[in-house]
């Protein structure tokens, strides 16, 4: 009898519980939104202006080689004769072994410090893409102004290193030539695991806090008939914890930035860089109306990570890209601006900004498909 007496109350309680459970379950789903992207291009963020290399553009590598040989004390007539045979003939061996240790020739690429520093030209201009990494703003020494945001105190010493070499100069001064990293990425992207970005928030059509995941995938991008990265393909997130990065961020006027700036690590590919390893990570990504995205990622990166993929190619890199490898080694070492070695005091990291474009994609857990 008691049951019947309390039946309306019980029914109400059950109804309330069901409603509450439904709401509790549905709330996050109904209000949250996730968009994933996969990188479709990646290159050094270069903003080159006509007057940003007061020392001039770096000479062609054949000219640089002649200077290198002269620095070793070789007479001009001999240099001229040898260089006439380049890229073949005995000069190749001489150039590869233009380092000197105890007076003996050694490989210049495995021993770049044994080569006389050719002192490549450095950028000395007003603008560079990037971020105010050290937080000093306009007071930051050797800093730039971002040409888009016009924020001052931009730290991007990598641009200073590369920016006076023709294959690394970007728009607006050099709008047509492909920049080295962009070309290399474009060529190799179907063969290395893709990098993905996932943005999650309550409502990505409105401003508000977001979570940003930057991960490596098991899968590579697919290309369409025009060689563009296919949109809306599926990527399995690599379970390797070394390439999982989660940041808190903010979406404002369609632009995602980070509100925490911890380290980022993505395993890369030595065709471009062994790893993308950043401290003080900064990120700015614009969600385009057409569903694509583009942006910048930056921070302080070990300069050795930049140097190794270029140095390992040795004379081949110099021949194809026309930039002096030992010169690059010295420039990166000299302009490194963070993470001093506790023993030597030498900085181990350099401020960088990389620019990317991205297309929409589906990013899933690796275990969610049976594909081996």
């Amino acid at each position, binding site marked *: 009898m008691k049951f019947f007496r309390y039946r309306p109350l019980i029914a109400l309680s059950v109804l309330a519980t069901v409603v509450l459970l439904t709401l509790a379950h549905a709330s996050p789903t109904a209000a949250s939104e996730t968009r994933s992207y996969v990188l479709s291009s990646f290159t050094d963020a270069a903003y080159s202006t006509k007057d940003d290399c007061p020392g001039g553009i770096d000479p062609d590598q054949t000219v640089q080689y002649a200077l290198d040989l002269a620095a070793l004390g070789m007479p001009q007539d001999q240099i001229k004769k040898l260089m006439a045979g380049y890229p073949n003939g005995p000069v190749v061996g001489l150039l590869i072994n233009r380092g000197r240790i105890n007076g003996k020739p050694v490989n210049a690429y495995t021993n770049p410090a044994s080569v006389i520093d050719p002192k490549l030209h450095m950028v000395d201009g007003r603008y560079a893409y990037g971020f105010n990494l050290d937080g000093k703003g306009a007071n930051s020494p050797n800093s730039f102004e971002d040409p888009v945001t016009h924020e001052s105190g931009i730290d991007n010493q990598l641009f200073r290193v590369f920016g006076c070499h023709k294959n690394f100069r970007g728009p607006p001064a050099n709008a047509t030539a492909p920049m080295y990293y962009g070309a290399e990425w474009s060529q*190799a992207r179907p*063969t290395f695991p893709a990098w993905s970005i996932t943005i999650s928030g309550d409502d990505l059509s409105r401003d508000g806090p977001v979570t940003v995941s930057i991960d490596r995938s098991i899968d590579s991008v697919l290309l369409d008939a025009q060689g563009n990265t296919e949109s809306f393909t599926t990527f399995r997130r*690599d379970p390797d914890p070394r390439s999982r990065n989660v940041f808190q961020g903010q979406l404002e006027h369609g632009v995602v930035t980070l509100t925490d700036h911890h380290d980022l690590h993505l395993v890369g590919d030595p065709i471009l860089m062994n790893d993308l390893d950043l401290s003080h990570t900064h990120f700015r990504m614009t969600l385009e109306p057409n569903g694509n995205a583009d942006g910048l990622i930056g921070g302080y990166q070990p300069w050795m990570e930049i140097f190794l993929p270029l*140095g*390992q190619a040795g004379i081949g890199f110099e021949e194809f890209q026309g930039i002096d490898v030992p010169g690059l080694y010295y420039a990166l070492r000299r302009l490194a601006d963070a993470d001093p070695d506790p023993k030597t005091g030498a900085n181990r990291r350099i401020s960088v900004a990389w620019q990317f474009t991205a297309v929409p994609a589906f990013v899933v857990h690796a275990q969610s498909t049976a594909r081996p």
Partner: protein
Amino acid sequence: MIRTGFIGVGGIVAITAFGTLGYVLPSLAASSEAPVATPPGITLQALGAGQSSVMAFALTEVPRTQIAFADAKGMTLYTYDKDSPGKSRCAAACTKFWPPALAPRSARAMGDWSLFKRGDGTRQWQYRGKPLYTFVRDTDVGSVFGVSPNRPAAARTRGPVKQPQYPGWDSALVFPLSGIPMPASIAIREVGDANGLAFVDRDGMTIYAFKGRGGAKAAMRLADQTQWKPLVAPALAHPIGEWSILTRRDGIRQWAFRGKLLFTFAGDQTSGDANGIGVSKDWAAALAVSFYMPPKVRLEQTLGRGKVLATGEGLTLYRRDGIAIDYGGGQSARHGVPIQPGVGRSIGVSLKGCEGACLKAWHPFVAPANAQPDGFWDIAIRPDGLHQWVYQGYALYTFSGDAKPGDMNGNDIFNAVLSDNPNQLNDVGTPMTGTANLYWTIAYP
């Protein structure tokens, strides 16, 4: 000689198989139970450029056009056409140039490998009745007729190495296999994921044989229900050798080898995959020859990287390698970049550039004290006396950061060997023309 075969299976029209059997490999078998290519003490070595002894020449594809039988030290073995089974015609002065491949007391005949006594009482290896020798002018692993892979001209050569002529003498090759009657649309290639020389279709996809009970009828029934695709014989194809054609009820003509129906596997994505192995005990890769594998090693399927060598417990095995410059990329592609045994051997068991915590992270994969070189497997003796397994020139390790089968957390860890001291010579143990960029990579078979 014409052999007539008939396979009577209900519901299947059997076709008479005609074929010449002028040359039949007695050991050829259409299953993963194919005979192991080598007995203990006999190794397999890629010849010439397949060794890639110099990093700079390891650009893009490394051709492995020839794989030879070799002695325990990796020296190429040869045959002499004047010899007959159990009888060597190379004696006295001849043996100064062509030393007989002598077998230790513990050696035992195995499969196509047998032993015979020479006049001086020593025992000599012979393969399929052909006595074997080494050549005194071979100085390095992968040398053939005295041409070393370490000579840049040889390392750069694509395709078979140009060899000096020594009339009557031939290198003893396991690959390519020659003289086997085979359909034009089928080939034999090295498939690491199957740990052997496998039959592949015209697209290079691994072929499988049904070895379960119930014969062809069961094979077709099971195949229709699963992911096995019949290996279709073209309309104009003829049976050849031990290859026959069955016509199914649906009219499809399907290849069979030694009466076992052949299939490809829908789960194989690309040439070189062998993902059908292990799906069921009823199916096996159709191998012409299988390669030796130590008892405590297995192939482990991974996500996105194909099969990798693993310990008996399934933990991924790694090797240390130098970056092969490949402007097309591919360092982290499925199956990785080609193995460069010469580079692996020159790096050896040294961990230069991997000190401190790095050194604690990598554990040598220990071989039993009595283990012998066999096939692609060799043994290195570490400075502390420990025996370490070596696969195709590379010393093998496990990674302390891996906890379970399938983990590959040590893959693509890079160590630069570079000093800022202008007077310090950077030496990684292997010739590199570029900056020394060594890395740890999963050991692909």
